[in-house]
């Protein structure tokens, strides 16, 4: 792996007369392929990877041990109590689902908006999405108590002649999250087929040849295939865009449809979606900054990409900050004493420490990204992005716990603290996430090579006048009937 390339090339100038290159350095199709493929093709795995992998696998073991303990013993091993019947499991579920959203935003929404910079980071972010959704899915499944009956959530014909209640947001969640996981996985795989074919064609060992060969399905870059592939990709992006908005909206319905002060607000769906994108970009930055450094991808994932992501973090962080203040305003303006109490209690009650952690990390920290110097200093971004991750976990904690711990009657007030099992389960879910992620960076193409190639000068053909279709601005000889007709 390439550790030599440590120089940053500045492509963040905002000169309107000149579009900055998105792939910097002296690169062409050949070098891009080489730089991306040399990572999965390396014959020796760096020691650091083994150390990270061993740590992640151990934590995954902890996760499954905790789940086993929970299933054998019961939900009582968690810190849940009455009135706080939703604790870390739900916090973690919302946290992980939210992280997933950046991947779909980058791959689908930025695709529809023709944001070309997405091509360098979409594969990476989509992988993150899938692994985050896998971590998320675990929590509600084990939270239901009898985890071995989790399939009851799905409408299937059964001997009890019963059907699930389709008017419950919890059931909407089952459909939203499972659809989201399925569509994200398909989107990721469809986009990866051409790159898997690249790895197949370059394979040196028989095993690599067969494995990449099987999964690339015999892809051969046929333009008749590309034509449909591009249509399919556009359609999937069009489907994933409303889907990603729906998923976190439905997650927010889990709260908003209830009648609890602090949860029962109409601002929840947009506020949750903005928060999800915010946390997801935070996580992408946390992961991508070390990866581009260690794997020598600085010319492909450039400062411009980091800067753009910082801008998204700044915008969505500010939307989240606006939502926090609007919640307070409405709590006062509605004149509802329970609502007002819930919010004053959030900021100044027993969980004030969590509330102010959330405010500092989610509202104040992103404001640093107003400064270009900070937006273009990878290691500062890295540190700030970790605060974003922490802040967004606390946001869900504040929402879930503070609204529950003060019931309508003071006789049913309580305080919630997690147990060691809660903590280890959450830490363990990071183990699962990083295990999958490390396997991804080691064995799969981390950058969507075929897509990056389409934004390089070599493919653009900026010659000639503005004619042709799509991005193509050159001359295309127009079709005319062949001299001797088609029938033969």
């Amino acid at each position, binding site marked *: 792996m390439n550790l030599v390339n440590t120089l940053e090339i500045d492509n963040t100038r905002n000169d309107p007369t000149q579009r900055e290159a998105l792939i910097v350095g002296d690169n062409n199709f050949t070098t891009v392929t080489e730089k991306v493929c040399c990572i999965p093709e390396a014959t020796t795995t760096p020691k650091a990877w083994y150390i990270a992998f061993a740590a992640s696998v151990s934590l995954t073991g902890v996760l499954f041990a905790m789940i086993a303990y929970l299933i054998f013993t019961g939900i009582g091993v968690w810190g849940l109590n009455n009135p706080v019947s939703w604790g870390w499991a739900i916090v973690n579920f919302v946290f992980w689902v939210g992280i997933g959203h950046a991947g779909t935003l980058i791959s689908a929404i930025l695709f529809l908006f023709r944001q070309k910079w997405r091509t360098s980071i979409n594969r990476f972010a989509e992988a993150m999405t899938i692994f985050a959704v896998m971590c998320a899915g675990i929590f509600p499944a084990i939270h239901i108590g009898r985890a071995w009956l989790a399939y009851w959530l799905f409408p299937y014909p059964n001997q009890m002649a019963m059907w699930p209640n389709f008017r419950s947001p919890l059931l909407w969640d089952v459909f939203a999250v499972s659809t989201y996981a399925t569509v994200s996985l398909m989107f990721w795989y469809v986009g990866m087929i051409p790159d898997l074919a690249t790895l197949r064609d370059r394979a040196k060992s028989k095993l690599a040849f067969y494995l990449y060969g099987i999964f690339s399905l015999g892809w*051969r870059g046929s333009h008749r295939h590309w034509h449909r592939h591009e249509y399919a990709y556009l359609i999937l992006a069009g489907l994933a865009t409303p889907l990603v908005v729906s998923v976190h909206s439905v997650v927010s319905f889990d709260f908003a449809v209830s009648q609890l002060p602090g949860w029962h607000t109409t601002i929840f769906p947009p506020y949750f979606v903005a928060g999800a994108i915010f946390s997801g970009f935070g996580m992408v930055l946390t992961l991508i900054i070390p990866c581009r450094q260690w794997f020598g991808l600085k010319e492909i994932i450039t400062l411009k990409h980091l800067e753009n992501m910082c801008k998204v973090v700044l915008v969505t962080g500010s939307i989240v900050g606006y939502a926090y203040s609007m919640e307070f305003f409405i709590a006062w303006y509605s004149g509802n004493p329970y609502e007002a109490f819930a919010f004053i209690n959030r900021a100044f009650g027993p969980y004030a420490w969590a509330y102010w952690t959330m405010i500092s990390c989610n509202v104040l920290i992103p404001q640093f990204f107003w400064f270009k110097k900070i937006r273009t200093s990878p290691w500062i971004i890295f540190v700030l992005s970790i605060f974003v991750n922490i802040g967004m976990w606390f946001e869900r904690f504040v929402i879930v716990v503070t609204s529950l711990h003060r019931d309508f009657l003071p006789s049913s007030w309580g305080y919630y603290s997690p147990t060691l099992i809660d903590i280890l389960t959450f830490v363990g879910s990071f183990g699962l996430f990083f295990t999958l992620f490390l396997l991804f960076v080691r064995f799969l193409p981390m950058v969507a090579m075929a897509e990056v190639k389409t934004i390089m000068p070599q493919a653009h053909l900026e010659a000639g006048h503005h004619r042709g279709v799509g991005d193509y601005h050159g001359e295309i000889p127009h079709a005319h009937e062949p001299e001797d007709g088609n029938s033969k």
Partner: protein
Amino acid sequence: MENRKKLHGLLVEFDDSLQLLGAAAKVRDKGFKHWDVHTPCPVHGLDEAMGIKPTILPWIVLGAGLTGLGVAVLMQWWMNAVDYPYLISGKPLFSLPANIPVMFELTILFSAVTCVVSLFALNDLPKWFVPQFKSQRFRRVTTDRFFIYIDAADPKFHAQKTMEFAKTLGGLAVEEVEDSPCGN
């Protein structure tokens, strides 16, 4: 089996997509039907240069989406209002607003799954072997080279004349691809 292997087609190699576009238009104008262009990434302008008509994929997906929507409406109505009526807080047994999220999700799910399945079906994938794979040159098609492939099955194909024509396309090289006994 014949001693001499049958010719399957001609492969013309390019390293420049601009040249490729011109060459593809020439092949199109010659009236070939069984031919293809292979590229490492989608090259815009090739649809026109090859004379490809837009795919029917979007229409298939539209049909699937509407099916998903219909399935969701019928499923929720039948399960919650007919087969096992749920009376909750005196609300109607079937009302649209409460059923919209699942309708939306199933529309998306049906569309997306159909989109991917039809993509594979229309592209005839997986198809793990085609004779072009025997060419060493062709390995670079997924990296940085562009190819035009004219299939010998084309009614206009003529071993010599097409070879001469292929040489006029201005590619780096022209290669004969032989039919393979183990594939088509």
